[in-house]
C-alpha cells in the first residue's frame, strides 16, 4: 500500500474519531447503553492484570474485546500502563507480522544492514585471500630450490663417457667430469636413471689393469645429466659479502637432500668398491668367487667401509692408505678426479706439463673468488694439502 493510500485512510480515521467525539457531546447515552456499560466494565483486578501483562492469553483476548469498545476502561489501562512504566508488558507477545519474501530480502539489503555487512565481507575476503597466498608460498619456495635443466638428464651421454682409458691418456671432456657438488645435488633426487647408466654400473666389463678411476659418485654424475659445468646444479655461493644469504628453507632442503644422497651414495660406492676390489683380484677368481663377490655386493657395509665412503665424499680421508698404489705412486680420487703425488704436490692426472697454470694462493682473495665460483675446486683444495694442480674447465690451476 503506497503512502498516498495510507494517508487517505489515516485522514478518514481521524475524521471518524472527531465525529464520534461530537456524538458524545450531542446525544448522550441511551439507557440501555448505560446499563450495559456498568455491568460490563472490567474490575480493578482485571484492569491491573491486563496492564501488567500477567493474564493468560485467552483471558487477555477476552478483555481486549471489551477494551476496544470501552473508553473508560481503556483510559484506566493507559494510566496504569504509564504508571508502571511498562514499555512492553507483553515482551514475548510481539507478533512478527508476516512479510513477503521480497520484503525480507529487501530488509537484508537495506542501507543499515549494508553499512556493516559490506566492510565485514570485504575484510573476510582480504583475510581469506591472504591465507591462501601464504599457503601457496612454501611450495613455490621449495620449487625454487630445484635447478631446472641440470636434473634428470638422460645418461646416454654418461654411457659414452665411461672413463675406461688410463689416466695418462685421459682427456676428459667437461661432460665427463662433473663436479661432486653437482652430484650431491642430483643424486639424491628422484630422477630417473637411464637404463644405460644402470647398465654401466652393473654390467660394465672391467678388464684387468684397467683403472677404474671413477667412483660411484662420478658414475652418478654421468648417469644424472649432461653435466654443464657452466651451470652448477645448485645455487652458487654468494660472490660477495653483500649478496643476500640463502633462505633458511634452502638449508633445510639441502640437509634433507644431503641425507638422501648420502644413503644412495653409500650403496653406490659400496658397489664401486667391490668392483674395484674385483679389478684388483684376478679375474679367474671371479668364477668361484663370484658368489663371494655377489655376497659382498649384497653384504652390508661395516663401519670402516662407511667411514671410508664418507671420507671420500667430503673430507680428508681418515684412512691414509686409501689410495691406489697399483702403479707405485700415490693417487687420490676426489670428486671424480684423480690426483697423483708428485713430490709435494698433488697433480691432476689430466694435467699436462706443457699447459700453463694459473697460480692461486690459498687464502687469497683470488682463491676465495675461485672457490666461490667453482666450489668443486674448493672441495679438492680442502682435501689435498700442499700444492695442488687441478685442471678445471680447460684451465690448469696451481694452488699453493
Amino acid at each position: 500500500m503506497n503512502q498516498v493510500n495510507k494517508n487517505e485512510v489515516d485522514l478518514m480515521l481521524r475524521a471518524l474519531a472527531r465525529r464520534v467525539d461530537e456524538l458524545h457531546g450531542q446525544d448522550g447515552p441511551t439507557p440501555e447503553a448505560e446499563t450495559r456499560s456498568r455491568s460490563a466494565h472490567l474490575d480493578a483486578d482485571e484492569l491491573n492484570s491486563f496492564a501488567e501483562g500477567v493474564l493468560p492469553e485467552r483471558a487477555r483476548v477476552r478483555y481486549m474485546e471489551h477494551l476496544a469498545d470501552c473508553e473508560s476502561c481503556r483510559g484506566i489501562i493507559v494510566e496504569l500502563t504509564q504508571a508502571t512504566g511498562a514499555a512492553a508488558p507483553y515482551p514475548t507477545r510481539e507478533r512478527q507480522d508476516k512479510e513477503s519474501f521480497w520484503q525480507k530480502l529487501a530488509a537484508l539489503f537495506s542501507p543499515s544492514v549494508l553499512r556493516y555487512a559490506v566492510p565485514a565481507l570485504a575484510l573476510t575476503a582480504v583475510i581469506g585471500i591472504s591465507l591462501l597466498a601464504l599457503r601457496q608460498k612454501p611450495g613455490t619456495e621449495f620449487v625454487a630450490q630445484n635447478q631446472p635443466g641440470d636434473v634428470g638428464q638422460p645418461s646416454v651421454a654418461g654411457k659414452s663417457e665411461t672413463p675406461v682409458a688410463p689416466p695418462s691418456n685421459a682427456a676428459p671432456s667437461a661432460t665427463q667430469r662433473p663436479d661432486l657438488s653437482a652430484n650431491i645435488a642430483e643424486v639424491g633426487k628422484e630422477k630417473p636413471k637411464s637404463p644405460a647408466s644402470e647398465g654401466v654400473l652393473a654390467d660394465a666389463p672391467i678388464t684387468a689393469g684397467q683403472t677404474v678411476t671413477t667412483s660411484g659418485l662420478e658414475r652418478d654424475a654421468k648417469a644424472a645429466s649432461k653435466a654443464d659445468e657452466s651451470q652448477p646444479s645448485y645455487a652458487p655461493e654468494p660472490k660477495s659479502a653483500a649478496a643476500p644469504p640463502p633462505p633458511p628453507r634452502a638449508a633445510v632442503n639441502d640437509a634433507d637432500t644431503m641425507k638422501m644422497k648420502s644413503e644412495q651414495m653409500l650403496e653406490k660406492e659400496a658397489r664401486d668398491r667391490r668392483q674395484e676390489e674385483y679389478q684388483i683380484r684376478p679375474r679367474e677368481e671371479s668364477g668361484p668367487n663370484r658368489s663371494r663377490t655377489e655376497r659382498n655386493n649384497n653384504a652390508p657395509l661395516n663401519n670402516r667401509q662407511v667411514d671410508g665412503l664418507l671420507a671420500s665424499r667430503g673430507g680428508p680421508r681418515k684412512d691414509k692408505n686409501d689410495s691406489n698404489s697399483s702403479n707405485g705412486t700415490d693417487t687420490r680420487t676426489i670428486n671424480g678426479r684423480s690426483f697423483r703425488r708428485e713430490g709435494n704436490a698433488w697433480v691432476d692426472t689430466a694435467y699436462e706439463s706443457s699447459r700453463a697454470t694459473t697460480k692461486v694462493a690459498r687464502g687469497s682473495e683470488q682463491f676465495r673468488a675461485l672457490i666461490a665460483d667453482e666450489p668443486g675446486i674448493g672441495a679438492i683444495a680442502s682435501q689435498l694439502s700442499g700444492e695442488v694442480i687441478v685442471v678445471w674447465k680447460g684451465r690448469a690451476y696451481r694452488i699453493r
Partner: protein
Amino acid sequence: MNQRTDQIEKLFAEGASRLLARATDAHSLSNESLVPRIRAAVEKYLLRDDPQAVPTTIEEFVDKLQADDLCLIVACEQGNQTAWTDLVERFSATVRSAARSASSNEEGAEDLAQSIWAELYGLRVREDGKPAGKLAYYSGRGSLAGWLRAVVAQLAIDQHRKQSRLVQTEEDSDFDRIIGQGHEENNWSGSTGAPNPEVEISRKLAGVQMQKALAKSVTELTAEDRLLVKLYYFDGLRLREAGAVLGVHEATASRRLTRIHADLRQQVESILVEEQGWTKPETERAFSDIAVHLEADIEPLLAGDAVMMKKENKIAG
C-alpha cells in the same frame, strides 16, 4: 467429572502450600484460608476460557501468583491488625500518588485517598457481620500496588460521573449511530463551494457512504486491531504509548497500523462495491476526493492539536 474436580482441588491445595512457602511473611495463614482465593483466581482467569486446562497449566498459574501481596490481603480480610498496619504503611504513598493523578487539586486527591481506604476496609457490613470491602477482589495475579492504582482510578471515575451526571457508554453505540445516520448529518464531503449542486450532492452522498463503510469496517476489525485504532485515533495516544498498552514495541505498533490501513481500505472498497454498487474506479476517485477534502478540514485542527500538545509537554516539563 468428580475425578477432574478432585484433581483440581488437590492442585489448589498443593498450590496454596507452595505459595505459603514462597511468601516471606505468611502472616500465619493456613492452606485452607488461601484455597478459596486461589480457586477464584483460577476460575476467573483460566478455567473460564479453558475449562479443560491441564494440571500443569493450573500449577503454573498458581505459582505465578504474588505470594506476599496475597497473604497480606488475605490476612487483612481476616482482621489481622498487624497486616492492616503493614498494608497502610507500605501502600499509602502509592494510593496518594494515584489519587493525585486522578484529581485536579490536592484537596480532591486527599479526599479521594481517604475514600479509597474506606472502600478497602469496607464500611458496609455483610450478612455475616464481617465488613465487606474491595480487598476480596484482589486475586494476587497482578501486583498489589497496581491493583490499588486501578481501584483509585475507578473510584475517581465513579465520583466524576456522579458529580457531572455523565455516563460513559460503549463506543459501539456511537458507531451504530454513525452508520445509521442520514447523509445530511455528515460533514465529510466538505463543501468546496462548487457551483454545481448535483456535484455537491453526489459528493456528500459519497462521503456518507464512505463514512458508514469505514465505521463498519472498524467494528469488523479484530479486537487487538480495533483496540490499537481506538488508542491511537480516538484516545489520542502516541504510537509508543499505544504499543505499551498492547505490550508491543512502537515499531511493531506502526507496522500493525499500516497493515490495518490496508485492511480497512480493502474492506471499505469491498463494502462500497458489493453493498452500494460502486465501481472500482469510482471508489478510487472517491478516496482521493475525500482525502483532499478531509485534509483541508483537518489540517487546521491538527495544527491546533499540535500546539496544544506542545503546551502540555512544556507544562509537564
